[in-house]
């Protein structure tokens, strides 16, 4: 009897309807949501300070739960989700209310907390930064967040205690998918072989559609059927952790050797030593077999004993980025864009812009690959000028947008402008990493 685990989200902004489809038609034992990026916690902390109405958890929490709860309740599909961000208890409490609305008030909801670590504790531990080797005190700017990536164990504990829905804060992405395997197959936390294989499958699942044909299509080279209708992945996991990756029949996209391989190495550095809180995964021994249309069996992924440390992610306010753009088209578009660049650079001198870094790009020419971009073979018909600067102060960052405003009437002929243009300034939260002993963190389970 295999375990059916479906993906419900790969990031905060992900599409919601494929999660609903997985819940309705995936015949799932578990539906897992991954909604956090590296800077999610820091951004949430900054927002929470300023916006008292911010709940501190996934802003699409209600939308996602409303979309999947009816089918999950009907099928008995349990939900594991890191939508708790900086307030897992708040999200769990909300889930409980939504369950009542959907006619399942008896469903049990657990929050996993305890990933946050205090600055005092980090200093006490003498933690050093992985980026520079320097002490925590060497981080420039105000530290706004510090949290460890927890592993699967507290989620397993919540499942053992009968949770139907487990909401976490920061946990490692593969752990969200590993936890149900550990629970249902009774794997020990020290069983590196199975945990390695299971975490490898979790890694394939954590980015959702990126393994089912998303972030993949390249016309004429890698074609994907119905890319407007991608299904999110489902893993049919066997007791040894090997699994078939597939998707709901009738959805667009593709699961094949190529999609599996691209995702297997996504955000991986040393493929023989992919470190998670639960185990060190070795992808180099993986066996990938296409076993049917949109069905790929993945086995042979290795595992080595977990490390003695957990990774802590630290967010610090470093300043601001001001950014805006305007555009040209028709004959001479590139020449007008170049004159506009000259005007802006002179203006920045005149107004004494204090920028740590300044970048003026031409979209359509060199904005994405920068220095790697070859010179245009023919004059581009359209060029957008994008200007961005990183500054210490918000006031300096705001000057970028103000100078772009002026280009409308005081700039070059045929300047197109973009209005409305809110959010031209954003805060820079630098992310730093450090390792701390496992004993420094005490994950807790709380039923609401």
């Amino acid at each position, binding site marked *: 009897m295999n375990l059916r685990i479906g993906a419900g989200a790969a990031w905060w902004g992900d599409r919601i309807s494929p999660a609903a489809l997985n819940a309705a038609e995936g015949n799932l034992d578990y539906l897992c949501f991954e909604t956090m990026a590296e800077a999610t916690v820091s951004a949430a902390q900054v927002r929470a300070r300023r916006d008292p109405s911010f709940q501190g958890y996934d802003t699409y929490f209600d939308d996602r739960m409303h979309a999947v709860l009816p089918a999950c309740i009907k099928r008995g599909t349990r939900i594991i989700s890191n939508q708790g961000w900086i307030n897992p208890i708040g999200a769990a409490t909300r889930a409980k209310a939504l369950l009542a609305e959907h006619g399942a008030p008896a469903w049990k909801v657990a929050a996993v907390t305890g990933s946050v670590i205090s600055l005092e504790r980090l200093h006490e531990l003498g933690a050093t930064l992985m*980026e520079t080797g320097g002490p925590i005190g060497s981080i420039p700017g105000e530290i706004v967040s510090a949290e460890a990536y927890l592993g699967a164990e507290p989620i397993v504990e919540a499942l053992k205690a009968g949770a139907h829905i487990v909401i976490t804060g920061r946990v490692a992405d593969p752990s969200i998918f590993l936890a149900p395997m550990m629970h249902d197959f009774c794997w020990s936390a020290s069983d590196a072989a199975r945990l390695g294989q299971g975490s490898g499958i979790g890694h394939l699942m954590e980015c959702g559609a990126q393994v089912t044909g998303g*972030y993949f299509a390249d016309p004429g080279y890698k074609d994907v059927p119905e890319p407007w209708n991608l299904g999110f992945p489902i893993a049919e996991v066997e007791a040894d952790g090997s699994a078939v990756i597939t998707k709901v029949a009738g959805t667009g996209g593709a699961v094949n050797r190529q999609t599996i391989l691209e*995702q297997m190495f996504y*955000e991986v550095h040393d493929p023989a030593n992919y470190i998670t809180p639960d185990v060190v995964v070795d992808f180099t021994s*993986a066996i*990938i077999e296409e076993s049917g249309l949109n069905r790929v069996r993945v086995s042979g992924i290795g595992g080595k004993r977990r490390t003695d440390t957990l990774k802590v992610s630290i967010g610090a306010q470093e300043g601001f980025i001001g950014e805006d753009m305007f555009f040209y088209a028709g004959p001479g578009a590139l020449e007008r864009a170049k004159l506009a660049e000259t005007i802006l650079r002179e203006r920045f001198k005149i107004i004494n812009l204090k920028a740590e870094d300044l970048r003026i790009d031409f979209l359509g020419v060199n904005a994405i*690959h*920068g220095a790697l971009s070859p010179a245009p073979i023919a004059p581009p018909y359209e060029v957008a000028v994008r200007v961005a*600067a990183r500054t210490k102060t918000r006031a300096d960052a705001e000057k970028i947008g103000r100078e772009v405003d002026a280009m409308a009437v005081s700039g070059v002929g045929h300047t197109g402008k973009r209005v409305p243009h809110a959010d031209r300034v954003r805060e820079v939260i630098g992310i730093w990493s450090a390792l701390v002993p496992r004993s420094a963190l005490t994950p807790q389970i709380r039923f609401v």
Partner: protein
Amino acid sequence: MHVPLRAIAHTRSGDKGDISNIVVVAYEADFHAPLTAQLTPARVKTHFKGVVTGAVERYDVARLGVLNFVLHGALGGGVSRSLCLDNYGKALGAAMLSIEIEIPDDWAPRLRGPSTASA
């Protein structure tokens, strides 16, 4: 003959801090050997000059037909600090596709995409 890497392999980039990794996957098992021989870390570092400021490491997983490149200092100081419009470097993997690789002439019928031979 020489072909762009795109004719024999596909790529994907991923981000972590100021590091971008780009996996290069050979379309067919024997396409991996010329990639291993010619797509050296030094060549990749040169190709990405002006964008990648740090070291380039390479992991060769021949049994899967994979080369995994780890590009340090590739994301403008890190995703949140980068002034690049594509601050996650999600499109960076495509920059690898234009690197020219020498392959045996008789592989021509097996190449991906429209006729790609350039020499």
